[in-house]
């Protein structure tokens, strides 16, 4: 006894879930405003954008595909070093360098995924850490290319399109990073709302059910893993190109761990957790770790424990609850 109007209402409502909401314009409005209102903070802003992209890639693999990883920095670092090594050895065009870095990271993601995604749970978690540590060791020892412990120096980054030179005040870096973030976000958003993205959510929710409806689960997870690696690689390249430096920390457990912290603070699996968690974390870090790095470390750890205990959905989760 369903009137036609009810049927259409339900179907329309469901079919329109991916439509843009006004609220989604907020980060971009704020970012553009930041360019004009906070001219002293442009280099930090560029870093924030690149890190948002990195944490977004983590959200994709963790919050959507449900793969818990301690080694996302492997892809970030691969992208950073690829862009860095290219720029230090003559290939200084930034955009192609970025693309190459993302591609390289994607390849590493694909290969490592093929090996490690055969397992799940704790074994998989440990293997993500081992992969990242392997790459760290590789970068550490291949000093001729990577600069080893001292980091990669001598990077030369040409102006974008030959016109926009990277300046000391970060104007070009800010816009460049923002545009790349925008593109990455757009891709991520499309994926999340696509049938593929929905199937990822299904896999995360109930993998037995997914198999029982004929989904090639392993293939889907591998695809998600590789895409997330590409985005992470792009973010690494951004940092490398805008700071003209790549260090071993770009492959470190700390880098992966920080991404997890920022994501959980913002809220996992909601696409915008990165946009909330990263600025909060990085601005706080910029402030407090100067004052006393030990205190900062302690309270960030305590915050993580607190969030896991009391506010598992992060800031966005709390807002969702308030909304109801």
């Amino acid at each position, binding site marked *: 006894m369903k009137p036609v109007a009810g049927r259409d209402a339900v179907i329309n409502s469901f079919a329109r879930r991916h439509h843009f909401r006004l609220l989604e314009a907020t980060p971009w409005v704020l970012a553009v405003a930041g360019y004009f209102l906070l001219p002293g903070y442009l280099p930090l802003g560029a870093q924030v954008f690149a890190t948002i992209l990195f944490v977004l890639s983590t959200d994709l693999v963790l919050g959507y595909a449900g793969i818990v990883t301690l080694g996302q920095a492997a892809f970030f670092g691969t992208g950073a070093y690829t862009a860095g090594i290219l720029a230090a050895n003559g290939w200084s065009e930034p955009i192609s360098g970025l693309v190459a870095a993302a591609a390289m990271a994607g390849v590493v993601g694909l290969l490592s995924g093929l090996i490690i995604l055969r397992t799940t749970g704790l074994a998989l978690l440990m293997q993500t850490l081992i992969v990242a540590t392997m790459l760290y060791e590789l970068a550490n020892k291949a000093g001729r290319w990577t600069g080893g412990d001292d980091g990669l120096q001598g990077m030369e980054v040409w102006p974008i399109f030959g016109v926009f030179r990277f300046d000391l005040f970060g104007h070009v870096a800010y816009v460049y990073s923002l545009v790349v973030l925008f593109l990455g976000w757009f891709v991520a958003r499309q994926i999340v709302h*696509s049938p593929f993205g929905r199937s990822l959510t299904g896999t995360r929710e109930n993998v037995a059910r997914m198999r029982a409806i004929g989904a090639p689960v392993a293939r889907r997870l591998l695809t998600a893993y590789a895409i997330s690696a590409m985005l992470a690689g792009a973010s690494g390249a951004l940092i490398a190109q805008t700071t003209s430096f790549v260090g071993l920390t770009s492959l470190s457990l700390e880098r992966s761990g920080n991404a997890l912290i920022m994501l959980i603070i913002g809220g996992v699996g909601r696409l915008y957790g990165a946009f909330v968690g990263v600025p909060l974390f990085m601005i706080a870090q910029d402030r407090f770790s100067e004052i006393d790095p030990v205190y900062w470390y302690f309270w960030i750890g305590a915050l993580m424990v607190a969030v896991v205990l009391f506010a598992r959905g992060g800031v966005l989760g709390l807002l969702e609850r308030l909304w109801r």
Partner: protein
Amino acid sequence: MTEAALETHGLSKSFGALRVANGIDFRLEKGARHALIGPNGAGKTSFVNLLTGALQPSDGTIHLNGAEITHLAQSARVKQGLARTFQINTLFRKLYVLENVTLAIAEREGVARTLLRPAGHYRAIIEEAFDLLESLGLADAALQPVGVLAYGRQRLVEIAVALGLRPKVLLLDEPAAGIPSGESGVILSMLERLPAEISILIIEHDMDLVFRLATTITVLVQGSVLVEGSAEAIAEDPRVREVYLGDRKR
């Protein structure tokens, strides 16, 4: 002899010394309403797991509509028209009821691997899912998360998801499990209305449902087929009564 919808020859599975399937020869005819019964621990769910590919056999073969599927992956068997429901609800609890079904249809249509078009664009899929829910009396719950529904209705969603795959062969693992006997009528009437072309194998303990739905019954005991025949014959069979003494649902 006409081609069977599903058949097994000498299907066996052992876990070390434990034989859960002992050379099972089984035949599901096209359009059948076939029940598999047996006491607890007989190996019925293991048999279904072997059929769907969740479990690999130690020996024997399985054919689906004439094609061998013994070593085919689970997802491939689904593509060939084999669908199942689970004894315990295995659904996407946090997702909408409607989405549970659209996910299945999207897999069937090969749409699920699309990366860059929004799922909402595939209106035909959403409409088909809604109509399917409506035919099962679930339309009003379409935009509710599965987890908030009463268990009995979740059981119906479980069947809806399987039907969304447009299977040729449907394996129902205790569809009435967990539902109080008074309410199993809803499940039964829904099962009676399933399209005649689908070949159905149903595992059940609820004898009421079995005798009202099934025309053929196979009795499985400790991994082996004890006896197989029409519903009337099985009801009369003394061996079956003996096996079920003290074990009957009603």
